[in-house]
């Protein structure tokens, strides 16, 4: 069971603003989802290393070589606000 307070706490960790109604709904829905997932806890996993990458892939390094890429201007084109090649954000107090 996840309470509304818990959803609000996690939402802040995730930097996500939620309306009161969204918080209420999510608490109910996530409680039901996690309730249905409860049986996972019954699987015996003592000493089992968690699996992260599913194939036996050997990660490799690229050669450390400079390459030409798009210009800084192109890279900045999607900025919501920019000054020259700097991202601009509104003033924040904290």
């Amino acid at each position, binding site marked *: 069971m996840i309470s509304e307070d818990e959803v609000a706490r996690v939402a802040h960790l995730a930097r996500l*603003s939620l309306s009161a109604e*969204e918080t209420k709904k999510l608490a109910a829905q*996530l409680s039901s989802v996690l309730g249905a997932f409860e049986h996972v806890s019954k699987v015996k996993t003592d000493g089992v290393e968690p699996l992260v990458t599913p194939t036996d892939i050997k990660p490799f390094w690229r050669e450390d070589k400079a390459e030409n890429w798009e210009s800084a201007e192109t890279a900045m084109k999607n900025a919501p606000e920019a000054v020259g090649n700097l991202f601009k*954000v509104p003033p924040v107090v904290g």
Partner: protein
Amino acid sequence: MNVLTSSLRQLSDAIRKKDLSSVEVTERFMGQIEKWNPKINAYITLNEKALDQAKAVDARLAKGENVGPLAGVPVAIKDMLCTKGLRTTAASKILHNFVPPYSATVVERLEGAGAINLGKTNLDEFAMGSSTETSAFGLSRNPWNIDYVPGGSSGGSAAAVAGGMAAAAIGTDTGGSIRQPAGFCSLVGVKPTYGRVSRYGIVAFASSLDQAGPMTRTVEDSALIMESICGRDPRDSTTSAEAVPAWSKQINKSLKGIKVGLPKEYFSSQLGTDTRAAVERAIEAVKRAGAETVEISLPLTEMAVPIYYLVCTSEASSNLARYDGVRFGHRADFSKKPAEDLAEFYCRTRGEGFGTEVKRRIILGTYALSSGYYDAYYKKAGQVRRLLRQQFLDAFKQCQLLMSPVTTSPAFKIGDRISDPLAMYLNDIYTTSANLVGIPGMSVPAGFSKDGLPIGVQLLASHFQEQHLFNAGSVIEETLALKELPHVLQ
């Protein structure tokens, strides 16, 4: 030759032989898009340069140049893949205005092989969904029956190909997002082995599960596209150095000596009658081609959906942290009410930019990773994931292929499951395991329900053994010889 219903192979042959020009073919698909996209909503953004690309291919052909195996054939690209200079939204408001400065490796390779990019197809927001109903750009409809979903998350790609609005499409599959919509729309869809296809330039959802792959009219078409997009990429360190076989040239329709495992947990009582009958017809087809069937048990099957949702939401909560309103994408309006602190700046931007399902998954993933819950959820899921992979590896000691349904029933009606997240998640019961354990999977058309909705059958093979999928898939395709067309093509 009906361009709209031809295979990619037929079209590229015709273009290469100059029976048809790439421009003619592209214009034909554009005409169908103009006619049907307003109703089906398969595309979010059309590529205005498609005809220029087609002209360039025709010009190169006229000069006798080798234009590549996908010569001049128009394809659709799921809007999860970055396309240089062409808006890429992931069907999210938070990326509604994002124009990538570079293309995904998959897109570069397709274009390098001669394909024409018709445009970007609709999907569930950030590929999170099984129906394409969570798109911020409106839902897509199933060309076989427009009251039904085309599946998801690659529903726009499926609807585009099924509706004659592209010769083939690229989808991405994190838990079934290629195979399920392919099944719902009577197409072939392949999720490659994890590491076959570069994830560079693909909007990240769950990095240990995501793979891009083809959605096509024929098995051979899927093999052709795979040959073009697979292989190591210096820009994705999880791509494999494994050689990319010429799958399309090696398709072997004799299945003598092949053992096909039927996982008994996949044929439970919840399987619909029509789906069961269609899968049984496909099983008969592979048997007639010489394959032997064996019953297999995968006892952890019931854990696949829970561990999938714990893993994918955890990875998503981390991957989606990049949408902060600073460098690209949507930013909330702070001109009237300034943010009091940096947290509020992020919270408001993200609260406005993400839709309901994405928020739900970010919260679930953040919860599963948070202090005090990590061991019980994320770590536990990873441990069970390893046990699940071992069960599959053991199964593949007894057989080369597994066959199962793609879903318990055909496409569902628009609106039927969208308000019940758990019902929507359980839809993924047969598809999520392939992503969790990294093996390749294919959905092949197997027939229709009494209501005329397509039904797919799923084939699974061991890591890097895609050839088995193409062989058995071709047998099913040839034996069942489905000729029906959706009404939008009649």
